C-alpha cells in the first residue's frame, strides 16, 4: 500500500466552471446514482408497481360496479385517479430515501464536499420523477387491458402527462422535506403516507365529489389532488378543460415555491443522528 499520499495522475485540481454549470452537473451525477440504485433494487420498483395495479383491479372489479359516474365508463373515469395516486404515493419513497441517506451518514459526506447544495435533492427528485414515469406507463398498459379506452388527442395526452410529472416533482419535494425532518426511515414511511390518504381518497380520484356531504365537498373540490385528477382526466378523455386546469398548475407551482427552499434548508441543517 505504497504512497497513499501521492497520485500518479497529473492533477487532482477541480475544473473551473460556473456555479450554474456545477449545479446541473452535480444534479446529474446524483440522478445517475439514483437510477443505478433503481436497477440494483428491482424489487422496490416491482412493489411500487404492484400496489397501483391492485388499486386498478380493486376499483375496476370490486367497488367500481357500485360507483356511478356520468358521461363515461367507470374504468375511463378511474385511470386518471390511479395515475395521480401513483404519483402521490411515489413521493413517499423520496422521503424514505433521504432519511436513509441521512441515517447512513451519506448526507454528511455530500455536505462536506464542495458540491452544489441542492443537487442531492434535485438529483433525487428528478430520478424519482423518471421512475414514476415508468410506473405510469405500466399503469396505462394495465388500464388498457382492463378496458380503459381513452379518447383524448395526442396533444391532450402530452399535456396530461406533463401535469402528472409536474405534480409528481412537486410532491417529491414535500416528501423530501418530510424525510429530512423526521430523520428515521420508519418515520419517513408513516409520516409520508399519512397526509396522502385524506388527500387521495377525499378527492375525485375514485368517486365523483358530488356524492360527498357538503362539508367534505368544500374540502375535496379545492384540494390539489382533485384539481390535478380532474384536469388529467379531461386531457386523456378529450373533455373540455375547466378552471381546474390553471388551479392545478398554480397548486403545483405553489408547492414547489414553498417546499424547494424548505427542503434545501432542512438539508443544510441535518446531520446523521
Amino acid at each position: 500500500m505504497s504512497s497513499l499520499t501521492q497520485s500518479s495522475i497529473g492533477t487532482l485540481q477541480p475544473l473551473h466552471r460556473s456555479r450554474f454549470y456545477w449545479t446541473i452537473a452535480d444534479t446529474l451525477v446524483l440522478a445517475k446514482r439514483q437510477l443505478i440504485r433503481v436497477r440494483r433494487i428491482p424489487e422496490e420498483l416491482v412493489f411500487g408497481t404492484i400496489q397501483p395495479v391492485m388499486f386498478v383491479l380493486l376499483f375496476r372489479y370490486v367497488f367500481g360496479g357500485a360507483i356511478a359516474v356520468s358521461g363515461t365508463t367507470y374504468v375511463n373515469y378511474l385511470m386518471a385517479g390511479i395515475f395521480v395516486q401513483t404519483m402521490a404515493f411515489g413521493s413517499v419513497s423520496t422521503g424514505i430515501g433521504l432519511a436513509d441517506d441521512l441515517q447512513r451518514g451519506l448526507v454528511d459526506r455530500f455536505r462536506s464536499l464542495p458540491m452544489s447544495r441542492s443537487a442531492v435533492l434535485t438529483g433525487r427528485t428528478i430520478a424519482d420523477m423518471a421512475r414514476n414515469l415508468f410506473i405510469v406507463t405500466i399503469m396505462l398498459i394495465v388500464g388498457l387491458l382492463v378496458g380503459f379506452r381513452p379518447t383524448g388527442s395526442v396533444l391532450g395526452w402530452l399535456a396530461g402527462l406533463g401535469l402528472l410529472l409536474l405534480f409528481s416533482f412537486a410532491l417529491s419535494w414535500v416528501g423530501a422535506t418530510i424525510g429530512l425532518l423526521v430523520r428515521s426511515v420508519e418515520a419517513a414511511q408513516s409520516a409520508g403516507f399519512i397526509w396522502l390518504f385524506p388527500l387521495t381518497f377525499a378527492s375525485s380520484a375514485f368517486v365523483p365529489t358530488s356524492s360527498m356531504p357538503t362539508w367534505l365537498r368544500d374540502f375535496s373540490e379545492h384540494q390539489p389532488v382533485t384539481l390535478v385528477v380532474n384536469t388529467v382526466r379531461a386531457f386523456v378523455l378529450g373533455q373540455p378543460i375547466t378552471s381546474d386546469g390553471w388551479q392545478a398548475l398554480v397548486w403545483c407551482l405553489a408547492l414547489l415555491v414553498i417546499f424547494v427552499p424548505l427542503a434545501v434548508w432542512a438539508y443544510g441543517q441535518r446531520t446523521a443522528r
Partner: protein
Amino acid sequence: MSHEHTRPASGKPAILAEGLKKRFGETQALRGLDLVAQEGQILALLGPNGAGKTTAVRIFATLLKPDAGRAEVGGFDVVKQADQLRSQIGLTGQYAAVDEYLTGRENLEMVGRLYHLSGSVARRRADELLERFGLSDAANRTLKTYSGGMRRRLDLAASLVILPPILFLDEPTTGLDVRSRLAMWEVIGELVKGGATVLLTTQYLEEADQLADQVAVIDQGLVIARGTSDELKAQMGGERLEVTVARGSDFQAAIRALRPYSEGELQIEREQRRIIAPMPGGARLLPNVVRDLDAAKVQLDDLGLRRPTLDEVFLTLTGHAAETPEGQPAALVSQDQPKERTLA
C-alpha cells in the same frame, strides 16, 4: 509526475478552534472548546461517547454551525468561507458513508465528480485508489458484498480522492476487528508521513498513543488536558503497581513493604485485598519490590504493573468516571484493556 498535498496558507495553524459552543436542546455538547493542530500534525481528540468529539468534527467539516466561538480550517472560517473550506478537507465518519448499492468504483467515481474532477480523472483516480487500498478485485462488486473492514477502507479512500491537505477521521476504527484496526492504523500512519494534517477522534487511549503527535482529552464539551501522549501519561501518574494479597492478615505488611517504592499515596481497596501504588518506571523497581514482599512473608494472589486506562485518565483529570449516554463507564464501552505485565 506526482501530486503532492496542496498546502493551506502557511503560517496559520491547519485547524483552529476558539471557544466553540454548541447546544442541542438540553444538551450542551460543546462548552467553549479550544483546539489547535499545526500543519502536518496528527491531533487525536480523545474522549468517551458523548464527550463532544463528533460535534467538533462536524463543525470543522461545515456540517454544523457553532452557537458561539469561531473555527478555522486551512485558514478558512468554517461559517463564512464554508465553500472554499470544503475543497480542502476529507471526512470519514464513524460508519462507512458510502452507497451500498453502488460498486466500489462507482462510489469513488461519484465522489470524484462531486469534488469537480473531470470524468476521466475521476475514473483514473478511482482505479488508483482501489488498487492502493487493496480493493481492485472487489472494484465492480456492490458494497453490500463488502466486509466491514473493506467498507471502512473504501470510505477512507473516498475522503482521499483529491488528496485534501486536511483530513477528519471520526472514530475510524470503532467497531472494527483487531486485524482491520491494525490495517487502518497503518494507513493513517502513511497519510501523516505524506504530510497531511489529520484530526482523529477516538475512544481508545492506545490509538491516540500509537498515532498522534498531540492528544487533546475532551470531556463534556471541553478540552481538559492536552499534550503529547507521553506528557499526558506522566500527568496521569504513569504506571502503577497492583498487588493483591492472598490473606487479609498480610495487608499491613504489604503496605509497609510497598510504601518506599510508591510515588504518592497508596490506593487501598481492602475488600478486594488490593493495593495500588503509583510507580512510574516500575519495571526497574519490580525485582526489589518482589524481594521485599517476599521478605515480609506476604503471600500474593496477583501482582502486576499496568498503565492507566482511559477510565482512570478521566478519574484523574475530572474527578468523575467518564459517563456514556447509556450510563456505562467508558472503559466498558471502549473495551480498553489495561496493559498488564503480570508476574505469576
